[in-house]
């Protein structure tokens, strides 16, 4: 169980949010909504440990994630709105490298299948610089296809995707929840999930 206790986030001299507490159980999806600047990205970055909250703690299985460090990082997969796709590499290289870096190597065969699932068939070996923004987003999302980490933290990942792409992502999240995974998703789009429990937090501006 992922628990946030009395989180507070201060950016500059503005308090973005405070006294935010919630928990996400296995098989549950938490959607974060709210206007621009309401702290969705900050909250997700706090949840994955990239940012320190000004107050409060995030705990995973009752242990503070600051103390868990690497043990926590093996349990999460974070996709930010800056997707971290290298333009000089092909989709195949991008995918195999990011999986390898996380200690979950995947074979070329699996990588090709994951990319095909995300609608990038026959594009595996084109340089990412020649692909559209939506297609680059799809490379980043292909990481979720054979992903078994327990927590998915997805920040605005539906941006630039077409309808078809969104449906693929929804299916992936559904499958993840059905396996007992947890997901925190920041998005303005409806998620239309059919599996697992669902809760929503609306952050105020």
């Amino acid at each position, binding site marked *: 169980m992922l628990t946030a206790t009395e989180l507070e986030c201060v950016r500059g001299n503005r308090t973005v949010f405070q006294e935010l507490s919630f928990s996400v159980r296995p098989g549950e999806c938490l959607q974060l909504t709210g206007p621009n600047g309401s702290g969705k990205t900050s909250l997700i970055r706090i949840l*994955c*440990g*990239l*940012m*320190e909250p000004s107050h409060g703690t995030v705990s995973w299985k009752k242990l503070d994630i600051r103390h868990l*460090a*690497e043990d926590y*990082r*093996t349990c*999460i997969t*974070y996709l*930010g*709105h*800056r*997707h*971290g*796709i*290298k*333009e*000089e*590499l092909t989709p195949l*290289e991008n995918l195999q*490298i*990011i999986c*390898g*870096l*996380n*200690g979950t*190597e995947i074979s070329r065969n699996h990588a090709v299948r994951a990319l095909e699932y995300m609608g990038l068939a026959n594009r595996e070996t084109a340089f990412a610089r020649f692909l559209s923004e939506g297609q680059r987003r799809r490379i980043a999302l292909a990481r979720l296809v054979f992903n078994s980490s327990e927590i998915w933290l997805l920040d605005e990942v539906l941006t630039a995707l077409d309808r078809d792409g969104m449906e693929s992502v929804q299916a992936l999240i559904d499958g993840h929840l059905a396996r007992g995974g947890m997901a925190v998703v920041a998005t303005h789009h409806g998620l239309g999930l059919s599996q697992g429990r669902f809760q929503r937090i609306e952050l105020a501006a």
Partner: protein
Amino acid sequence: MKANHAVMFRWLIRREVLLAWRRKADLFSALAFYIIIVSLFPLSMDPDSRLLRSIAGGVLWVSALLATMLGFHRMFANDFADGSLDQLILTPQPLVLTVIGKTAAQFLTIGISLILISPLLGLQYGLTPNDTRQLAWSLLLGIPVLILLNAVGAALTLGVHGGGLIAALIVLPLCVPSLVFGAGGNVSLVGAVLAPTLVFAPWAAAAAIRISLG
């Protein structure tokens, strides 16, 4: 799941070397810069072989320092801009190992190229085989120091406008000891500088990255 650091480290090196190879222009411009500066000195000076031989160490070292600094602030800045630095930090690998991997890859690409071309450039200064060997050794131990210190500078100025100049101002004084020892041909003293740099610089760079991101 037990994290396998060896596998992750191998992928990191593979990533960095592949990226360096795909950005060949950066690699070759640093190398060309090095060759040009080193070659201009013998052309512009009195062809007195004693004079040339005595300045060779200094010229090669200063040029190597400038060549490694060329575009070095991009070391983390590129990854920072496209979001892959976040991904690198979130791998199960400690950030220190990631920094070590990135600097090791820099050494394997630009570092090795500079060292390999140096004996050839030394010919222009009429270096004896013995001098050349000593110089190559001092560069072999010294260039890692320069790369590691540059990594600290790059990490400290991450996300700062005009960071390249500030990084240079931070890094240059730190490079002076190895420059003095290396240009003077004191190979063992360069090694003595390398040892603590190898231990402390990755930690400093990792800490600086965390601060820049917070």
